[in-house]
């Protein structure tokens, strides 16, 4: 009996070994990602307030989603999110590429500087936000102090002025996440083959030409990874905003995720918050798919 069981288990293990190997991961993912996703899909169809003593959940269909289209804050926060994503991703990719090219050679200085550039990435965004908040402070901060010394009127400080709050927050994100792009692109640069460069050299191509026609096209897959990771992360930005401006002044830096947080954790309106979170999910998923398609078509 025992032997038979053992044999049949063995057989299963041998013929379907990939199932066994995948199982732990699948269970983990189901618990951590799939279940919460379906839960949030479910409660987004309900009127469900966490603070309701009876915990009643009333089915309202797509009312929560329709409500999002009438919510004035949604449009402001969507616009702010797009500005934030555009501002951070574009400047981080350009700066990251520059840094990667600068520090690609294996010199001692490059190795030294490289390791230092990784520090911002290792810090929790909340801590970074608090540090920058005090740096930016109009009355006691270091940055306004030097700006004032240069004769520049800082007004309410970078985080307090309507027009400067968003650029100031974007700058924090650039400071923190450009090194990540640099690391990804460095890895890409290191893995490039030598032959095309040698061939180009023989053909008399200038360094600029080999950069434009060889390096950049070959780096495209790496760019895709860097771009995608940062775009998605930028869309989800929360901690930096929470720690520095709380979406202020007014609504100037209220991004989508911060608005979701307010609805969920201040109003405890879980149904509506879940609906908003799902809208964010769809936006990001669509953007991801478009980029994957565009980049893979160009590659072949």
């Amino acid at each position, binding site marked *: 009996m025992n032997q038979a069981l053992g044999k049949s288990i063995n057989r299963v293990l041998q013929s379907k070994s*990939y199932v066994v190997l*995948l199982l732990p991961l699948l269970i983990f*993912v189901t618990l*951590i*990602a*799939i279940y*919460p*996703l379906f839960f*949030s899909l479910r409660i987004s169809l309900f009127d469900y307030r*966490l*603070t*309701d*003593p009876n915990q009643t959940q009333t089915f309202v269909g797509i009312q929560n989603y329709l409500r999002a289209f009438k*919510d004035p804050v949604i449009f402001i926060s969507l616009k702010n999110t797009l500005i934030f994503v555009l501002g951070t991703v574009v400047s981080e990719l350009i700066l990251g590429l520059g840094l990667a090219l600068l520090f690609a050679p294996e010199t001692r200085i490059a190795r030294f500087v490289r390791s230092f550039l990784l520090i911002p990435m290792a810090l929790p965004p*909340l*801590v970074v936000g608090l540090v920058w908040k005090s740096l930016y*402070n*109009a*009355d*006691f*901060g270091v940055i*306004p102090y030097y700006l004032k010394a240069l004769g520049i009127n800082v*007004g*309410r*400080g970078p985080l*307090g*002025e*309507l027009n400067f709050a968003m650029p100031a927050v974007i700058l924090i994100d650039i400071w923190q996440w450009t090194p990540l792009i640099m690391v990804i692109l460095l890895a890409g640069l290191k893995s490039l083959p030598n032959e095309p460069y040698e061939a180009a050299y023989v053909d008399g191509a200038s360094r600029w030409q080999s950069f434009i026609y060889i390096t950049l096209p070959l780096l495209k897959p790496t760019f895709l990874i860097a771009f995608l990771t940062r775009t*998605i992360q930028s*869309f*989800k930005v*929360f901690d930096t905003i*929470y*720690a520095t*401006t*709380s*979406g*202020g*002044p*007014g*609504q*100037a830096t209220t991004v989508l*995720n911060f608005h*979701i*947080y*307010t609805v*969920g*954790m*201040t*109003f*405890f*309106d879980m149904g509506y*918050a879940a609906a*908003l*979170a799902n809208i*964010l*999910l769809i936006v*990001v*998923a669509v953007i*991801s798919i478009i980029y994957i398609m565009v980049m893979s078509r160009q590659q072949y």
Partner: protein
Amino acid sequence: MRNKLIQKIMYSCLLLVMVVGMVGCSTPTAAPTEAVVAPTTEAAAPTKEAAAPTKEVAAPVEDVKKFDGVELTLASMTDQYVSAFRYLIPLFEEETGIKVVMDELGYVDLYQKLTADFVGKTAQYDLMTVDIVWSGEYATNGYTLPLNDFMARDAAVTNEADIMPVAWTLGEYEGKQWAYPLAGYANVLNYRKDLFEAAGITPPTTQEELLAAVKQLTVGDQYGIALLGAKGSAVAQDYMSFLQQHGGSVLDESGKVALVTPKNIETLEFFGELFKYAPPGSTDYWWDQRETAFRNGTVAMMEGWSIARAGYENPEMSSIVGKVDVTAAPVSAGMEPKYGFGGWGIGINASSDPQKQEAAWEFIKWITSVDIQKEWVKHDGAPIRRSTLEDPELVAMYPWFPLMLNSFENGDGDYRPRIPTYSIIENALGTYVNAFLVGQETAESALTKAQEQVVANTK
């Protein structure tokens, strides 16, 4: 062929999982764990030597035995009184055998962690400090235990008549006590004696005089007043405080939220006028920055909670030692003097088991008893009892106690309405008053939008 298909399915599953994994984290439950900002964060206490409290306050020994081995968890706001907790808890443990583990949390964090604990009925915390403004919400939802049965049973030992009448607003809602008074704060006006003397003026007694003094004392890098302007609870609470001093209210007579009234608009404009004489960064000030501005001598005046007063005489964190005096927060000319009252109660989790609730009540009784209150106040706690405010030794230590007593006697604990929808009102005001201050809205449009947001989020 089949294997290919399975492979394809597996790959697509993996792809889905990756996308979901990367994006799925955006559900709003991911609350930050750190205590980011806490009102009056200056927990660093001026070190004072004090005698150990007299031990005969506790209940009789046989009563105490039954709690041996009970462990309570206390969630405390990181206000200044947290150092009094740190000092007193070991004494309580020694006396009763009840172990108390304290978790110190910042304002936003405390509120959210407690709500999660109450909603899930996880009873992670047995005791919690309850902000005066949370009373209504906690009562309506039955988060904390109504203490009236305990109070009636032990009325002989608690000496309730000694507790200031206004202090009961720290936890009272519709006739029941959902938290017990713990730390009472009065809204007072701190001012720089030296600057007022140099300018040859006396401290303001009305809001109109306050504005005049603020204008006069703003010279060069010296500003008239420090205010809370940061988006969120900070600006909302400061506006409501001035609203109280001008005789306005966020509720109408029937108790409905009514933000757009001529009085409220006028007060908001006054509030905006004051900001012209506050440090330029004020629209970004949270409680701690406002304190810094006063302590480092940038401003001449600051309205704030009385609990911060002792810190101004501590050279380690103040550069204005000996230059500060305190007076009642001025109200509008012709108004009956009413002073903003706030502070913290201490509540018992309704989901904790009965033995723990009993032990928790023991703790509340002990910490609010007459003798322990004296130690509480000596170690940076805040008073709730008349006997504490009139104690000669304490008055010698804190010469501003008689003023506080007067503020408590004319205290108004309801200028920030203690109703279930308070946090929604606060959030709406927090956004739009700040938007007004930075010039995004006019006073009227700001309050109109805030009103709309409150209505949209309350059903």
